[in-house]
């Protein structure tokens, strides 16, 4: 690395004394760092550069060239790498919306709440004929589709659930009455239109 001070005798083009970095060395270093999949160490650069070129000087010159550009030369992980200039990065940020579907269980639960609100968790389970997991309820809550609507005056005072204004917005409804009536929907005579009979416990209250 000291050789730059005293012009190397084997160098073809004996440059001027202050040894400005040669365009050729700059081009090689630039291309190597650009193409490499990893940060390029100064030692690797030394192997690549023409004899007599000081990697430190080359990198300093290259970093200066890129200092004001949209891409900067930075030292990371023991080597050199090009990185997008920090102030430009936000402009390149692209947000891709990938909307999620609700799982079937959540959709069914939501539909039952929409049609039967205010409704207790036990009632939802009876209508669906299956247990309702806390996860499903949490999912609907997190997405702002349902909300507690007080308590049922029954033993244990279970929470009553109903839909939110967010539910209407999500489904493009002005009003809950915009939903088709249950009677219009359930045309299969085998499907009972009223919620199943309450068990004795509820009936007792």
């Amino acid at each position, binding site marked *: 690395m000291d050789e730059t001070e005293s012009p190397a005798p084997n160098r073809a083009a004996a440059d001027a004394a202050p040894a400005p970095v040669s365009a050729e060395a700059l081009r090689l270093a630039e291309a190597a760092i650009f193409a490499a999949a990893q940060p390029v160490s100064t030692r690797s650069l030394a192997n690549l550069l023409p004899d007599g070129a000081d990697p430190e000087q080359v990198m300093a010159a290259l970093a200066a060239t890129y200092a004001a550009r949209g891409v900067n030369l930075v030292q990371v992980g023991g080597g050199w790498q*090009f990185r997008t200039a920090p102030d430009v990065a936000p402009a390149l940020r692209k*947000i891709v919306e990938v909307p*999620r*579907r609700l799982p079937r269980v959540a959709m069914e639960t939501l*539909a*039952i709440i929409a049609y039967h609100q205010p409704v207790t968790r036990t009632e939802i389970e009876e209508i669906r004929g299956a247990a309702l997991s806390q996860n499903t309820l949490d999912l609907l809550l997190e997405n702002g589709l349902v909300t507690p609507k007080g308590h049922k005056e029954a033993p244990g005072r279970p929470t009553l659930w109903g839909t939110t204004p967010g539910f209407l917005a999500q489904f493009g409804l002005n009003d809950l009455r915009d939903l088709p009536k249950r009677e219009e929907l359930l045309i299969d005579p085998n499907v009972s239109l009223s919620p199943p009979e309450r068990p004795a416990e509820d009936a007792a209250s």
Partner: protein
Amino acid sequence: MKSCILRGIAVDSEALVLNLEGFEGPLDLLLELARTQKVDLTKISILALVDQYLAVIEGARRVRLELAADWLVMAAWLTWLKSRLLVPAAPEDEDAEIAAETLAARLIDLQRVRAAAIWLGQRPLLGVDVFARGTPEDFTETDRSKLRVDISGLLSAYLAARRRGGAKLQYRPKPMVYFSVQNALERLQRLVGSQPDWSTLDGFLPQGLGEGLPRRAALSATLVAGLEMTKGGRLELKQDATFGPILVRAIEREAAATNLEDQDGRD
């Protein structure tokens, strides 16, 4: 690749015979032979080409080289073509002319493919002659906060839920929740102190049971609970006549304690 090495050297039938397997098939060989005529491919002599090809095949047979069928099929076809081209003014003459032109056209096509492949091969190839950025940066962010739902999905989910719920009800008797012994114990413990004198067990049943199974179940549960508490020395039970009303009375605390000792002695 053998064919590549071969392609540079002057054609010698014997050499070709020995290197036949270096060719990609009869058409490949024909093109190589045509090139030896050193004329524009549009002006090649088909007759000369046929002779060259047949000579190579003959040579191959002489050295007992196993030949794939397509080499022989081409040889047979070329023999036919040659005979037709040689017979002057035969009725099939035109067919042969067309066949010869088709063959020449196919050779030109193949030559163009070669030229195109070479042109492509001379392009600066990404990853070999030129390199793209080794570490692309991805500024794409995925926003999965939005929901993809619609009314029809909501309605079909509702129908599915109701259908399933309905189906369960049809096939399974309604689950009856009876007043349990546990319930009866809690109720009896809570209420029995408020009645200092004998009172009927029926009086401790919960309200609104109606008649029938739920009531009978509640009565048995309460009786079992009463017996349990009697055993524990907290209650006295008596029935004056068979099927008569069952009477119940709380035992005072001190008495309860003595009773408990007696009970332990009995057990």
